[in-house]
């Protein structure tokens, strides 16, 4: 490896780490802002001695700096503290709920790619036509609709009126269809818009004209020549959107009573379970930073110029 590469990668890692550290500190602050947790656990009528004992047990009587360092140590060793309402380790509860949210995110993202990319390519190859206008407006519509409302209307249509699909809960693949469809709307729109922009840039390059002049079929020019070059921004957005979806699943999971991370977060917030809220926020931030790192790595694999 060249020295410049090492320096660039090192700088990138350092700035990612700094962002992570600030995000973690903000999450810590957010936890502290919640007021005295002993009042939540013991109720407002509890005698002061009992509260004092609990504060000692939770480590809340230590100086804030010590608490903060303990918290950081915990984060980097995978210990995100204890929930106040469930008396369980937050890490294990997140691990229990994560598969459900992953199912939802995975299915939603797959659907978004399957529809979004062809839609974007369609718009870019017929730029300026009614096809383009239709596809672009449809994509913008996907970014304008409140997703949970779209989910509610799907429930009305397919569960209440037609009775084809279940309205909520999880279990069979049938239960996954409506929530996944709802999840896919926003990333689908985002991917379609980005594919259109990226493809239309790629199609304007001189090498496309030269490929066409050599008599290569339009389909091959579009997919092999233009699309492979337009892929990088799309790949980036797919990875980053996945991170956003993981934490953005709250409203969708609420509509369908889907037992994922989003539901857990809502419960934690309703019961003022600040360690659990904090743990989920931290988890979200960790995932986001790791995915950012993944994007950088993918960049250097797909695009040899970056290496």
């Amino acid at each position, binding site marked *: 490896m060249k020295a410049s590469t090492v320096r660039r990668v090192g700088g990138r890692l350092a700035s990612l780490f700094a962002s992570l550290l*600030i995000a973690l500190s903000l999450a810590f602050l957010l936890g502290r802002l919640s007021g005295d947790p002993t009042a939540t656990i013991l109720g407002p009528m509890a005698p002061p001695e009992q509260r004092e004992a609990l504060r000692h047990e939770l480590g809340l009587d230590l100086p804030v700096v010590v608490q903060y360092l303990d918290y950081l140590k915990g984060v980097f060793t995978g210990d995100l503290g204890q929930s106040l309402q469930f008396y369980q380790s937050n890490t294990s509860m997140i691990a229990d709920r994560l598969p459900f949210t992953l199912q939802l995110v995975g299915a939603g993202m797959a659907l978004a790619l399957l529809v979004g990319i062809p839609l974007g390519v369609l718009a870019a190859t017929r730029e300026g036509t009614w096809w383009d206008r239709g596809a672009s407006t449809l994509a913008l519509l996907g970014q304008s609709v409140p997703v949970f409302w779209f989910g509610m209307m799907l429930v009305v249509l397919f569960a209440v009126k037609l009775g084809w699909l279940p309205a909520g809960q999880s279990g069979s693949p049938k239960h996954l269809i409506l929530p996944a469809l709802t999840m896919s709307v926003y990333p689908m729109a985002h991917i379609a818009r980005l594919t259109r922009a990226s493809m239309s840039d790629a199609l304007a390059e001189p090498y496309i004209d030269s490929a066409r002049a050599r008599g290569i079929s339009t389909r091959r020019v579009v997919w092999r020549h233009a699309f492979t070059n337009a892929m990088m921004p799309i790949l980036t957005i797919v990875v980053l959107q996945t991170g956003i979806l993981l934490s953005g699943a709250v409203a969708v999971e609420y509509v369908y009573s889907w037992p994922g991370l989003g539901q857990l977060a809502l419960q934690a917030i309703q019961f003022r379970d600040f360690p659990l809220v904090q743990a989920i926020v931290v988890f979200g931030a960790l995932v986001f930073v790791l995915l950012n790192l993944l994007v950088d790595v993918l960049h250097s694999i797909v695009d040899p110029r970056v290496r």
Partner: protein
Amino acid sequence: MSMSQLELDPVTAPVSPPRRAGRRARTSVFWLALPLAVTAVAVFVLPLTGLLPDGGQDLDATRRPPAFLSGGSWAHPLGTDKLGQDLLTQFVSAGRLTIVIGLVGALVAIGPGTLLGLLAGYFRGWVDRVISILIDAQLALPFILVALAIIANRGSSLPVLFLVLALTGWAVCARVTRAATMAIRERQFVVGLRAAGASEPRIVFRHILPNLAGTIVALGTLQVGTAILVESALSFLGLGVVPPMNSWGSMLASGQDELSQAWWIAFFPGLAITVLVLLVNLLGDALLTHHDPRKRRR
């Protein structure tokens, strides 16, 4: 850029577009802004006309469907809720709050976002490094969870809602403004101003900021759409606008329990949000294209 152009309304002030394209962009901006303006005026003026049905409870007329469905009547054009309250009346007053939240929510995000972006882009160096790391950290936090956590702590009120909207929006605005400032700062006229000994605040606020006006207005427009969507999601989860106040998002929340019996309670506010945000986004895109010479050529 001449002084007379600077004094023009930032929405319509062209940097120097080819004439035809500029006019076309302006027409589309006009046709997108018109329905938005009509809606805004309507929700504020309609309640004053006395044309709206009385909003009180009527337990003999609960969950009436809208007028165009069988069983509905023109006494309640959009139907009634579970207490027999007229939904059109609610819809209009909720629309008022939704629009106000969208506008104020965009302003509170744009203000600090633009300022920080300007500083980072102009001064570079450690100022830029600190602000950039803050932007990345903000974007790394799962914003909906942060929003929920703040609201769960501080309670639901309009000031808290605006704080949340500012927190969710400033980073994107700052990033775009920073990039635009960095491009302008290298332009000849800025180099000239610096050589002529103009003070830095003067360069930043009197010369660079006006050049960014178009981009900022476009960003702000898009931010209105974001603010309305974020508000509706928070209100839907019961953490944004709460009774006795009413927004389209909180109407959706009250309609969720009634989906199987009275789907229209949730249908119309959601449709209204979708159309409003779509128009706002189209307008923002048109403005952005109008002010981005790279895109305008197409």
